[in-house]
């Protein structure tokens, strides 16, 4: 038997266009630059602090394990992908470059783990920034 689709008022409201507000533009940008801040500015205190702690913790462990902090202009495709991942950490990445945190090459297994920690911290922060945007446009509570 073919399953018939019904449209309920709830699904109609969730697919309706929502106005693009200043918060919707700022939340992901600030959330990217300062991990968790996109949630904090929308008064999601616990979520914001947990996201900040998770991204900062992962980045800090990566740096402490002498993980490589990628640079933009090496010309190597894998380095460019690593750079994009690292850049997701926002201010943490810029601080790592300014203060020369982490290693410049992967010389041990621990440095390899650390490199992955730093890249994934950036990718997780991008997920958090997208989540902040979803909260700002009302797609999520």
């Amino acid at each position, binding site marked *: 038997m073919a399953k018939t689709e019904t449209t309920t008022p709830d699904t109609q409201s969730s697919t309706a266009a929502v106005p693009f507000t200043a918060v919707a533009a700022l939340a992901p940008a600030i959330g990217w630059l300062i991990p968790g801040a996109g949630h904090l500015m929308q008064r999601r205190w616990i*979520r914001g602090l947990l996201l900040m702690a998770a991204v900062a913790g992962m980045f800090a462990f990566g740096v*402490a*394990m002498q993980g490589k902090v990628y640079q933009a202009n090496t010309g190597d495709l894998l380095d460019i992908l690593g750079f994009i991942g690292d850049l997701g950490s926002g201010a943490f990445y810029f601080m790592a470059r300014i*203060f020369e945190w982490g290693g410049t090459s992967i010389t041990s*297994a621990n440095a390899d*783990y*650390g490199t992955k*920690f730093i890249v994934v911290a950036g990718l997780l922060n991008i997920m*958090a920034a997208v*989540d902040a945007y979803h909260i700002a446009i009302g797609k999520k509570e």
Partner: protein
Amino acid sequence: MIFTLALQLSHFSAATLFAFFFSIVFGITQRNTPNEMVRYGAYCFAMALGGLFVAGWFMWLLHH
């Protein structure tokens, strides 16, 4: 280099830390209510640790 700490972790410790941090972010971003977030975060962490043990024993069997 200002940051000179060189932390040495075992593969298991590093994977456990990794699972802990990504479970927090996955729990918060992939679910809508606080209760669901905690449950999904715990689920992700348990699955990651379980996968770690399974992969570890699988590699041990391959080796022996």
